[in-house]
């Protein structure tokens, strides 16, 4: 689906929050490395998508009404085979229907279970005065508790991207702490620059969270994506 039609559909349905699949589609089209997600409405389609993406696989319920997916048993991790995916598909649909009977269930998101990397967060929010502002930080506890994050207004340049990464207190962790392989900083800078361009090209996006992004020694990938669009066109 074209970027405009993704946003239009969400608006037509009265939503300001895109589904993970929609969000990732938009990002993927903009060249932002995301772990791809496919929508499957049947068990067979889930198995086919899993085979295409490669195992291990994660399944997540897709429903505009369900935001906390784990609370309704809507998530299955580490599925290693077609058989596991098929069984998990049935289990997730049944559990979601039981726990959230009023919710519209669009299907299940099929996603590759990426190997763990150093967790970082990349986000965007809009400042009333300065417009879109990008954020970078280490993920998990560090962002929540220590607010160890760096900001720059959009658009950013290469120097800004580098400074954002170097500015956070947790930077030594990305440089390779205690024998851990250093993160591929060039790929992180590139990811920030791509998100900046993406945000510039899509003024209709109000807020964005890529959380987590896994930083590896040879790349980086956004594992989860959340996109909020402006209320009106």
């Amino acid at each position: 689906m074209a970027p405009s039609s993704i946003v239009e559909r969400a608006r037509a349905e009265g939503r300001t929050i895109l589904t993970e699949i929609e969000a990732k589609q938009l990002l993927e089209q903009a060249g932002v490395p995301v772990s791809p997600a496919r929508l499957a409405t049947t068990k067979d389609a889930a198995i086919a998508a899993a085979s295409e993406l490669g195992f291990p696989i994660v399944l997540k319920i897709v429903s505009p009404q369900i935001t906390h997916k784990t609370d309704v048993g809507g998530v299955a991790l580490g599925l290693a085979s077609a058989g596991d995916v098929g069984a998990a598909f049935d289990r997730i649909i049944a559990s979601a229907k039981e726990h959230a009977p009023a919710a519209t269930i669009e299907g299940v998101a099929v996603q590759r279970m990426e190997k763990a990397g150093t967790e970082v967060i990349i986000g965007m929010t809009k400042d009333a005065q300065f417009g879109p502002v990008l954020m970078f930080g280490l993920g998990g506890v560090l962002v929540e508790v220590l607010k160890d994050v760096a900001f720059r207004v959009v658009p950013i340049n290469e120097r800004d991207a580098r400074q954002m990464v170097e500015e956070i207190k947790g930077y030594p962790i990305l440089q390779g702490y205690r024998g851990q392989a250093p993160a591929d900083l060039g790929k992180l800078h590139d990811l920030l620059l791509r998100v900046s361009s993406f945000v510039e090209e899509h003024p209709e996006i109000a807020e964005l969270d890529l959380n987590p992004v896994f930083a590896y020694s040879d790349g980086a990938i956004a594992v989860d994506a959340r996109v909020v669009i402006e209320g009106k066109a």
Partner: protein
Amino acid sequence: MTHDLRRALAPRTVVVVGSKKADGYMWLRNYSTFTGNVYSVQIDPNEIPGIEALGVQNFTSLADVPGDIDYVMLAVPRQVAPRILADCAKRGVGGVSLFTSGFAETGEEEGIKLQQQLLEIAREGNVALIGPNCMGLYNRRLGVRQSGEQGAGEAGDAGFIGQSGTHSINFGLVGEAHGVRVSTSVSIGNAIILDVPDYLDYLTDDPETKVIAMYIEGVKDGSRFVESLRRATAKKPVVVWKGGVTDAGARATASHTGSLAAPRAVFDAIVRQAGAVPAHSLEDTIDVVKALLYAKPATGRRMGLMAMTGGQSVVITDAFVDAGLEVPRLTDASYEQLRSFFNIVGGSYQNPLDMGGTIGFGGSRETLGRLFDILDADVNIDAIAMEMASGFLARMWQSTPASLDTLLDAIDAHRNRSAKPFVAVLQPQHVEEVVVAARKRIQERGIAVFPSFERAAAALNRAIAVHRFRAGMD
């Protein structure tokens, strides 16, 4: 609409409207140092004799003032302000500062209504309006001042934009006491017509202004501010002191990023991104401006430190390292030279140079010169900081003033030869009155001197950050 501010901010004729005895003829006194013509406009016959007693020619109407009027200070009751502003528009004045307050800043209906009238009159008449609710212009060279205590005469190097009259006046006063003199400063008040970017653009192009500092609380047009700030930093260093930075206003939003993007964090990011330097108080602003004006530009962060005693050597190192600078080992060549004459009984020369026993507390000019030469030649060292040992030496500087000159001559000889930035630390110690006098003598030589290691380090570190940004390094 953009205004050419050259007439308003470098005026040849100034008019004060509404000067009166009750405020001690404040504005006429502030302009008593003005090099051009000062006239008064006052219709109250009770006030006119007092004005004329000051030697100022008074008129009862702006229309009667002879010649071109470049700058008008309006100090009239708020209800009258719109009418007088309209007169200014009619006369085609270069600019108007409106001292009067009681407009939108009050939040009350009458004030908001009057401010709207000012806005319409100024727009319609294309008046370069400064304020309202401001202290207007300080042009040191021309002697147009915001306060009768501010200096006048030779032009300074530091431009200032202040969203507070107090901070604007104090930047002039406190700055000058610490060796930083103003070129052009504007207290911008409610900034209903001219705003920060207008003044920033002017100071960017002003040849007298070498460094720009500002105190701001809020920005009306974010993208225009950023654009203007970027243009300024491409030409000269800019120091931004932001008031009102608490995170109390942080909003609740649907995303992580939104809740973390407190106004302060975003503003600091903008300042850095534009290549400007953040500062946190009046003293801090003056410190950074001082380092930018008086320490030579450098992009390296490796410090050569000089102190008179062991204890000071330790804490000067702590302060510079804590600020983000480095204190590396010297080269072997430097150590070889130092070994030949450095007194290591009660001293050491690893870096810092604990040099009291080597140069003697009288400060041997030759030996100190040798130490400077070694640090200057050392490729491991980018910048030099020296502790002045005021605790031990101030009494001697008082009884034998030439002893301070000997020390300063050695420093100057080094500064004349060296391209590396130099900062001095003159601690208040127990002899503050002597230190104040010594500080003035040090500043007169154009040496960047700070009252503590921490302030010296923090200021120098940010000055280096500016030079690195401008060199495309960070």
